[in-house]
């Protein structure tokens, strides 16, 4: 039997960049969590907002579970107001997670808050990694990532840090044996185009979710292999499967 929603104590909930928060939770016991998996989270008691929200696992260290999230609408806004001593209800881990392969040289390509699952992934990769991180303007979590990668390519749309432009501008698919990407759809689409026929890609997809466990069929996407649930068969899909 899997656990339903659990109330976890908040250890910290800090704004690491404008509208970007890092929240750390105290788990009661160690859980097996794969990089790329997510939790459904609920930081309110009444019925508005109604649905829990999906957040990717950003880090796990001892019994501490970390999410990195961007404040978008009401749910993440309410989340950002929680403080130490408050609790957060979480359900998970959910979804398939990334397929880890060793030996091959790997490129991780993120755009904006798509960086969320990448740090925990990085910690679990047993291979040389180059990291391409794109942001609109301010950058975050680069210090945590820098020491763990071969080369870190940072880009910002306004040029305030690193390369001015997009993360994929500096990326050459021929240099890698595996590419993993998470970020805005147009970016992931571009990655797939660049890699097509050259190197396999894993993409972490988003979709609106209700149940998070595969029961409502609300989060489906069309793939080359038929209709798939992002929460159950995903959120990580093979690049050649997804139709962006």
């Amino acid at each position, binding site marked *: *039997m*899997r*656990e*339903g*929603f659990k109330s976890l104590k908040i250890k910290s909930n800090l704004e690491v960049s404008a509208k970007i928060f890092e929240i750390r939770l105290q788990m009661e016991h160690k859980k097996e969590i794969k990089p790329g998996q997510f939790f459904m989270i*609920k930081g309110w008691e*009444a*019925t*508005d*907002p*109604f*649905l*829990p929200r999906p957040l990717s696992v950003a880090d796990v260290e001892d019994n501490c579970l970390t999410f990195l999230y961007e404040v978008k609408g009401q749910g993440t806004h309410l989340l950002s107001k929680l403080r130490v001593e408050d609790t957060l209800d979480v*359900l998970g881990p959910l979804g398939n997670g990334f397929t880890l392969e060793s030996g091959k040289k790997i490129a991780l390509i993120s755009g904006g808050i798509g960086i969320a699952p990448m740090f925990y992934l990085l910690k679990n990769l047993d291979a040389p990694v180059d990291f391409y991180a794109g942001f609109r303007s301010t950058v975050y979590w680069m210090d945590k990532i820098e020491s763990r990668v071969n080369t870190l390519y940072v880009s910002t749309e306004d040029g305030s840090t690193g390369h001015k432009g997009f993360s994929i501008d500096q990326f050459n698919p021929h240099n890698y044996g595996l590419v993993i990407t998470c970020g805005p759809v147009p970016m992931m689409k571009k990655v797939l185009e660049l890699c097509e026929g050259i190197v396999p890609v894993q993409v972490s997809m988003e979709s*609106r*979710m*209700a*149940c*998070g*466990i*595969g*029961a*409502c*069929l*609300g*989060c*489906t996407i*069309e793939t080359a292999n038929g*209709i798939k649930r992002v929460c*159950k068969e995903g959120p990580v899909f093979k690049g050649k499967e997804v139709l962006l």
Partner: protein
Amino acid sequence: MADMAVNILDIAFKNPVITASGTFGFGREHADFFDLSRLGGISSKGLTLHKKDGNKGIRLHETASGLLNSIGLQNPGVDAFIQDELPFMKDQGTVILANVGGGTLDDYLKAIEKLNQTSVDMIELNISCPNVSSGGMAFGIRCLDAEKVVKEVKAICTKPLIVKLSPNAENISQMAESCVKSGADALSLVNTFSGMAIDILKRKPVFNNTIAGLSGPCIKPIALRMVHEVSKAVTVPIIGMGGIMDYRDAIEFIMAGSDLIQIGSGNFINPTLSLDVIDGIETFMNEQGIKHLNEIKGCLGKETFFN
């Protein structure tokens, strides 16, 4: 000690709590979280004769205390259900309702004929699906359309037949009467309300179909009123639902006249919500000295309506 058991149409339910169609799949996902034998029953995802891929585009949109959905009856089709899902469901030790959606009347009939041959305990006929011959309007809006489909289904259905009413019906108590007159052995209500949402930046409806189905606590006061009205209009067993989120809501539906209740969107907020509701009902009965639920079922007395 409270006894939560409910018997309707010669079928024994351990307790009055059934998980609602479309919110619990075929039980497989929730079986990871709790022992499904604790449930009164499970209503399957809506089945159609043939496999359906469901709707394209956005399928979910959150609203204040509710949810708009436009899943579009994605399901593997009746044959695959019978082969791949039903054996698992029947193993769970709870009452299994096969919820049947349709496209044409003929599809309904063919699907029911197949289900007649199985160990399914009951049929729940969803008449909110578009009736192609009636210009795309659902069978469940006008009494005459509903009568036709219920009569024909009843003629061939060998299982107890529950007809699931749409709250979009022109007149819910007349609709209930029509369905019972046409052979419904029991009624369940409500299905989702037609609603919509607009993406103001795109200047377009959120859903490809424009209209989607509203469920959740937002609809509870209306659903409860409809259950109460219907319970005054007919004498067959009633399965009430619409926004049930805790045992108090469930008790309200029972007091309004429900024999059994269903939990839909609540399953999304918490996969084990139905257990909380079952436990809550039991505690409430013990605290209030209620031995059987029929002591409180429809206990409001004769009321007049102010429409």
